[in-house]
């Protein structure tokens, strides 16, 4: 059974067709890339999956649950986590708090025990702190734990965003242009990092990327979007030569 199944996903912003008849089946453990020029509807697809927008039409089924119409926090607690194209950390909060916040739905205590600071509350809080620090340790961010997120260097902020997403205990991770603003060297290291994260946390990953090199080296399958429509779909070698992709994505008469 596929982990994520998207059928006929269509979304309009007023008269603008942002996504049209998008279909995707993700098997557990896969790493699939979505590419396409600016405004092709890539981020919109992420926003539709995560409930930021409700699709005009279409079906999104995650592990047997229909996600359409669910609030974002429910979708996230079901195991769909994401990062953003432009980093959206809680900038003025500590690195540790950024990760702890993402445990919200995993904590079971109610308001009364929080206010009374009951034993159960303290035990749960201890666990979350432990786990958050463990995550930070794994991602090499532990030494920043008490600093505000905004004080981190750019690359570390990207990693923290992934740490925060991992704190939600996702099974599906959506990465929105993780290599944005990185030079080729940094992007290469990021690719290794993504591979490592996938193995370590046994994740299925859907990745939006602008830099061809990153997706080509990383993904098993690639979908190409242009003006909201899927114009090609296949393994990287195929996509590399696909005439419509070259035309839409790179311009006429270009080769990669």
């Amino acid at each position, binding site marked *: 059974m596929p982990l994520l199944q998207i059928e006929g996903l269509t979304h309009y912003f007023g008269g603008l067709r942002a996504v049209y008849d998008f279909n995707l089946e993700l098997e557990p453990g896969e790493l699939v890339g979505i590419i396409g020029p600016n405004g092709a509807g890539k981020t919109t697809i992420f926003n539709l999956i995560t409930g930021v927008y409700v699709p005009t039409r279409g079906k999104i089924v995650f592990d047997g649950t229909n996600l359409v119409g669910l609030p974002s926090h429910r979708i*996230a607690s079901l195991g769909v986590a994401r990062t*953003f194209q432009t980093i959206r950390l809680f900038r003025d909060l500590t690195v540790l*708090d950024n990760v702890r*916040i993402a445990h*919200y*739905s995993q904590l079971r*205590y109610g308001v009364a025990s*929080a206010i009374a600071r009951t034993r159960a509350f303290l035990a749960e*809080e201890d666990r979350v702190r432990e786990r958050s620090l463990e995550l930070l340790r794994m991602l090499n961010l532990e030494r920043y734990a008490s600093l505000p997120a905004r*004080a981190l260097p750019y690359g570390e902020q990207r990693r923290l965003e992934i740490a925060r997403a991992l704190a939600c205990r996702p099974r599906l991770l959506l990465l929105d242009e993780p290599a944005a603003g990185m030079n080729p060297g940094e992007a290469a290291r990021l690719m290794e990092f993504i591979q490592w994260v996938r193995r370590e946390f046994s994740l299925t990953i859907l990745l939006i990327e602008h830099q061809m090199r990153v997706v080509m080296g990383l993904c098993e399958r690639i979908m190409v979007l242009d003006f909201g429509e899927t114009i090609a779909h296949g393994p990287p070698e195929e996509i590399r030569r696909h005439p419509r992709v070259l035309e839409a994505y790179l311009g006429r008469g270009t080769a990669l």
Partner: protein
Amino acid sequence: MHKTSRKPQLIWWVLLAFLPVTVVLPELGLINPYLQQVFMYVGINIILTVGLNLVNGYMGEFSVGHAGFMGVGAYVSAILTVWVLPRQYGPFLFPFVLVAGGLAAALAGLVVAIPSFRTRGDYLAIVTLAFNMIVKSAIENIEAVGGPRGFMGMDKLTNMAWVYAWTLLTLYCVRNFVYSRYGRGVLSIREDEVAAELVTVNTRQCKVLAFVIAAFFAGVAGGLFAHLLQFINPRSFALFPKSTEILVMVYLGGIGSIGGSVLGATIFTVVLELLRPLGVWRWVVVPLTLVLLMIFRPTGIMGLREWRPFIPPGELLRPAPGRQEVKAGAPAAD
């Protein structure tokens, strides 16, 4: 290793140890009635300010009609002691009366919160503004509770000890709320609401809780106020001056800081008393101070910092914006 300490902080025991003092001082006549009154005003204002800070400071929303909730609590508790409950048991029932007033205000808070948090931004300001006006004019039009003339007949049940105890309780509860998953949720709403939702935070739950808790304590403050003055009228709970004063105390002390609210409420209340000889001119000095404050120290006196007693043991200090800025090169890279 990183265990949250179970040991209560000494400072809270010290603060609690002062409770008998607030009973003994007036009994022995060691503190004159005027000072007692100022002390109680300070306490009531701290309760109001800390509550509103939860919504306006920690959560970054803008609620402007906090006195409306105070009014609901004041009238409900006054009606209970004057009409409903046997007078001779008043002193024993007083804490329950205050809780009832608080619950009534919390219910009003819930009614306001649920529709207003469906949308974003300035909407809450408008709804709370309207709520405050509705409370005021509703009471003005209910003849049974005296309409615009006000309501009286309460015994003087509020004393220094009750005010002090409720102030401590409020501070303790709000602190613990702030340092729980709900409090972190509230902070994440201020930082980036969409991102908060996407990392599993139930933002509506957090918003409604913060708002209802703020309303509850405003209701309690109203009950304390009603049984201190033994006379209340709708104008005591109007947008101006009461709601405005609470806003001023929040921003004076500093948003997102319990210590700030304690400072803000105390300084404001005391300065206002000291300026009494100036008469109407008080209302020139006070706003002017506020304008200057906003220009020279827009984050308030505490500027998002916190006092140690208001941080549970084992918790990290939360960084203050504008501080601890990027230290070039440090810490060492991997």
